[in-house]
């Protein structure tokens, strides 16, 4: 894509999300979502093959339908309350339907079907933006309406998302689909805690974005999109092999890595609110996620995956891709746990 056009379009993606996050008027929320959606379509369609076009079309249709539902219930909320302020309490029915619309935008179960298909059809860098930046705007609106969300709805969607993220990712070998199911599961964790402590949702979002950013950048560095080609990393860039090992364990939520902080905090907040079965189920189904991350680690770092002899003697070229900020990101996605006591500043 032409560089000036690319810059303008990225600027619009960023400003669309910023408008949603910073506004206090429901109409501007909808405008921000639509600006974001419109501008990200050419980013999803960077490669002009039919698969990318199909993925961009699917993304557009689901997100536009969600925006329409959101707009309808914004207007019905205006009918009942007479005002457009976002932070004022919502009509209960409007709250349910707006939560549904935002769940469609996030890819929570049972509206998760578009996530693997869209993520698989687009390039790795577009998938990166889709799974990290695009989650910020809907979660910010859920944060603002968190006091009036119906618990039955959000907790059902959250536990279903973690389950589907876990079981769905088990049969995948394509890395983008694995990351898509990982995103579904993490969204489930985030929405579980939304009603009880929205701050922990922000914590989970931050750590999830850092880890997913790092994972995608490591995959882009290797130019791999499948498990089989990831398993040849030991020959191309041995350093990345060990980084993937630690990163996958962090994504799975194992202590002593940073991925453990949000899970620990969420389970703590849920138990403080006298829910016992919910965090048990969440923690047990998160183990399914851990299984497929461990499978990636196993084939990449712990064994030499079967391949023919010519693949074992590759030339080692210097990486020409611009991996800005990758070393600090790796450090942040694995070594933040000792800083967890700093969370006491929230009290």
């Amino acid at each position, binding site marked *: 894509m032409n560089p000036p*056009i690319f810059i303008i379009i990225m600027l619009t993606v960023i400003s669309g999300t910023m408008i949603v996050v910073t506004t206090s008027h429901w109409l501007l929320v909808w*405008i921000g979502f639509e600006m974001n959606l419109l*501008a990200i379509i050419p980013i999803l369609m960077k490669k002009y093959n039919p698969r990318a076009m199909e993925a961009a079309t699917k993304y557009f249709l689901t997100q536009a339908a969600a925006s329409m539902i959101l707009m309808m219930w914004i207007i019905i909320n205006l009918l009942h309350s007479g005002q457009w302020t976002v932070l004022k309490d919502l009509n209960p029915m409007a709250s349910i339907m707006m939560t549904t619309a935002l769940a469609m935008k996030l890819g929570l179960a049972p509206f998760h079907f578009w996530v693997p298909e869209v993520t698989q059809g687009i390039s790795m860098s577009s998938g990166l933006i889709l799974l990290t930046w695009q989650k910020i705007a809907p979660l910010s609106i859920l944060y603002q309406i968190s006091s009036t969300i119906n618990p039955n709805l959000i907790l059902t969607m959250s536990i279903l998302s973690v389950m589907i993220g876990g079981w769905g990712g088990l049969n995948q070998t394509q890395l983008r689909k694995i990351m898509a199911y990982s995103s579904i599961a993490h969204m489930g964790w985030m929405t579980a805690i939304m009603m009880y402590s929205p701050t922990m949702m922000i914590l989970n979002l931050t750590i999830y974005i850092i880890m997913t950013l790092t994972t995608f950048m490591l995959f882009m560095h290797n130019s791999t999109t499948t498990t089989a080609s990831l398993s040849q990393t030991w020959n191309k860039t041995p350093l990345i092999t060990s980084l993937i090992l630690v990163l996958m364990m962090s994504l799975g939520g194992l202590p002593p890595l940073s991925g453990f902080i949000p899970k620990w905090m969420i389970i703590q907040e849920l138990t403080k609110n006298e829910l016992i079965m919910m965090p048990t189920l969440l923690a047990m189904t998160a183990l399914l996620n851990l299984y497929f991350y461990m499978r990636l680690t196993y084939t990449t770092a712990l064994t030499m995956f079967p391949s023919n002899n010519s693949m074992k003697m590759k030339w080692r070229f210097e990486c020409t891709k611009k991996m800005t900020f990758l070393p600090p990101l790796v450090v942040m996605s694995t070594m933040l746990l000792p800083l967890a006591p700093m969370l006491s500043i929230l009290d």
Partner: protein
Amino acid sequence: MMTYIVFILSTVFVVSFVSFSSKPSPIYGGFGLIVAGGIGCGIVLNFGGSFLGLMVFLIYLGGMLVVFGYTTAMATEPYPEAWTSNKAVLAMFITGVLAELLTACYILKEDEVEVVFKFNGAGDWVIYDTGDSGFFSEEAMGIAALYSYGTWLVVVNGWSLLIGVLVIMEVTRGN
């Protein structure tokens, strides 16, 4: 009939939406859009928004739909599907119209109807002289406010329109 004009217009509005949602060829869908635009203008006029209603005709029908009509004429197929061409489109059209007529009859018969929110039969569609809007037309004041207090909104809208054009050109570039 004039007391219930908004109700009648709203019903025909939904029927014209059904006419293009039943997916005939785009040229026939464009006809449905023209009718919908005209009726929408009528509904807005009944609420006192004379300027905005005529804006619908001018900008929407006279600008956007004309461009749509020309592009559809350029990209048309040799045998376009009308509403009676195949059973699928006809069935969807009839289903939509039937659903709307049944809803309209239900609203007219019952005293108080609660679908998403309560409304008292067709009485809610009659425009009474509620509230004191003073000597100024609210709609003209709203438009004036957009261009004075709503500078940020104008900037956002203008930027979105520019981005719309850029995105369309990027998407249809194809290389």
